[in-house]
């Protein structure tokens, strides 16, 4: 079997240089590639365009890259809970493109499935439709949206094997399998890295063909953004 494992986050992010476009998995702080983000902070790479549903919080996730002014542009569906983000956006330092969440997911799917565009009704008649082709099928209007075209994808999985197969846990799946499919080069960090044959072939969410580098993350903080509980 093909071995796609690398030593650590530093080795995994090799080749990510200034002004590149990155697809980043995760929803809120759930299932984000913490180790890759930390390594990118260390690397000092600048001018990044990040395609990610959210932008982290001030001191965690993509917020760390924002604090460090390494991000030029965010393409996201929702970017609340981040004061530094707000400051950079309002001052014009940070470019922000807001797109519907389903459009974000499906543009990644399209890239992974080799489909140049998809049509979605989301955003028809709104400012999201500005400059886009609108086309009517069966009496309903749809926007034409392009597949993402990004240099790298960084994703986080629960388990992976050295051939790059990935398994996600609960809602930490979210955008991760989609971003993984959409990257020209895809980097996966996992909580548990196993040998080929230890994952059930029927349970693999992302086949290794979509994953170019895989490593066991050193630390997973897995911070909870909204701890909502019922008292015992």
């Amino acid at each position, binding site marked *: 079997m093909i071995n796609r494992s690398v030593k650590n986050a530093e080795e995994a992010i090799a080749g990510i240089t200034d002004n590149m476009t990155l697809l980043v998995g995760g*929803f*809120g*702080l*759930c*299932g984000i590639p913490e180790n890759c983000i930390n390594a990118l902070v260390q690397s000092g790479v600048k001018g990044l365009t990040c395609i990610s*549903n959210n932008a982290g919080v001030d001191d965690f996730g993509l917020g760390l890259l924002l604090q460090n002014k390494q991000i030029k542009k965010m393409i*996201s*569906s*929702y*970017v*609340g809970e981040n004061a530094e983000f*707000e400051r950079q*956006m*309002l001052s014009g330092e940070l470019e922000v493109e*807001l797109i*519907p*969440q*389903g*459009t*974000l*997911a*499906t543009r*990644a*799917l399209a890239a992974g499935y080799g489909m140049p565009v998809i049509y*979605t*009704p*989301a*955003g*028809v*008649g*709104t*400012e*999201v439709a500005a400059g886009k082709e609108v086309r009517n099928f069966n009496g309903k209007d749809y926007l034409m949206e392009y597949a993402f075209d990004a240099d790298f994808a960084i994703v986080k999985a*629960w388990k992976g094997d050295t051939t790059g197969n990935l398994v996600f*846990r*609960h*809602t*930490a*799946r*979210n*955008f*991760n*399998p*989609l971003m993984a499919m959409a990257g020209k080069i895809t980097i996966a960090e996992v909580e548990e890295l196993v040998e080929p044959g230890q994952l059930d072939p029927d349970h693999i*969410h992302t086949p290794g063909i979509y994953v170019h580098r895989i490593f066991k993350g050193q630390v997973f903080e*897995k*911070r*909870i*953004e*909204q*701890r*909502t*509980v*019922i*008292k*015992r």
Partner: protein
Amino acid sequence: MLDKNGIAKRIAREVQDGYYVNLGIGIPTLVANYIPEGMHVVLQSENGILGMGPFPVEGTEDADLINAGKQTVTLLPGSSIFDSAMSFGMIRSQKVNLTILGAMEVSEFGDIANWKIPGKMVKGMGGAMDLVASAKNIIVAMQHVNKAGESKLLPKCELPITGLRCVKKIVTELAVLDVLPQGGFKLLERAPGVSVEQIVKATAGKLIVEGDIPEMVL
């Protein structure tokens, strides 16, 4: 006049046995508390859950298990997890029977505005534009008037819209109204103790009042 829980309770009566339901943040989330025992309803959370359960018991919360509002939740027996493309796939293909969400404004043609206030920090539309563009049955839960006392039921949305001609029904602290395909808010029910006149006064868009308007049963 209803409080938030009253609005949620009234909306819960629109939920039918066998429904798959997507609940937005705020009042819609409360609807889950009023679904009658024995009624089989599956909650969809657009970050990738079918069969979402209540909040976890303290100490059992799991960072890998959150809802679309980023709150820790639980899974019920029979639940399933999927990626965001499939999640919006099932929304787009109208497999979700009912979508309940909040709004800043609704027009008399069912246009909805709920994502952006010009001049204020814009956080983004999240999944709202996908939901309103796709769902076949959308109920809006909101206050009838805004904090400045202005009606949120308008001839035309003034805020940037989220979706066109999509809202089917509105439940507010004052009333239940259908949005007619040809335009207009048709008054169906009054909240307890609320008069038709109060509703007329609080509605800026075309209001249709036909015959006796019953008080709602909760």
